[in-house]
């Protein structure tokens, strides 16, 4: 760091709420859209939010706050991507398996995607959502060193 340190800006509870609301709006737009690729818009906003929290070293803590604000209770330490999806996507329209799959895709992208490549392009380049989810399982899944989770924490 050269000279002065960057000013850190605390994330207020209202700011967490505003972020969740923004993602809910994005989710609603996906539901209303007929475009097959609309889901990438929602996944991108989830991805950007959690990557930013992770960059500040507070992904798990903030995911817990988000869950608390949306009255979800988690016994285990939450996975930030899955938690944010749970808080912002309609549970009636998104089952646990799909949420888990998207979470794996985003964790895979958090590990391997370049900063300047759009998420949609990255996922498509790597074979699509299903392919990325299985790539995650192969490279970073259970039994593998979870570098993505370490970075998110």
């Amino acid at each position, binding site marked *: *760091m*050269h*000279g*002065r*340190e*960057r*000013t*850190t*800006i*605390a*994330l*207020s509870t*209202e*700011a967490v709420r*505003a*972020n969740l*609301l*923004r993602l809910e*709006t994005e989710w609603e737009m996906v539901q209303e859209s007929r475009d097959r690729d609309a889901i990438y818009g929602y996944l991108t906003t989830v991805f*950007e*939010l959690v*990557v*930013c929290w992770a*960059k*500040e070293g507070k992904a798990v803590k903030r995911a817990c706050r988000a869950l608390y604000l949306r009255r979800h209770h988690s016994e285990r330490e939450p996975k930030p991507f899955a938690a944010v999806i749970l808080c912002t996507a309609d549970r009636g329209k998104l089952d646990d398996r799909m949420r888990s799959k998207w979470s794996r895709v985003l964790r895979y992208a958090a590990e391997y995607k370049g*900063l*300047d490549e759009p998420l949609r392009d990255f996922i498509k380049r790597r074979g699509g959502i299903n392919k990325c989810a299985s790539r995650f399982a192969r490279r970073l899944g259970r039994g593998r060193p979870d570098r993505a989770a370490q970075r998110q924490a």
Partner: protein
Amino acid sequence: MPIPMDKILQEIADQAYYASSLRRNGVQPTRDVFLAEVLGELEASGDAMRFVDAKGRIAWMATPRLRDYLQDLELEAEEDLEDEF
């Protein structure tokens, strides 16, 4: 170190800083501290969001909601101007 932000937020923050400097008589917080306060408030109201930029830094940008709102204002202003002439 300056807080990276987009043009819209930069403009809002500059205006707020200028307005505050006119009002205050006593100790003025440093520009960065003041901007941090403004950004925190904008984030809480859903008008600003943080993101990781291409250089890997935490940066700030206007939310789609604020962008849409400003665009609507601009269109309305243009329509008003057309009505006048």
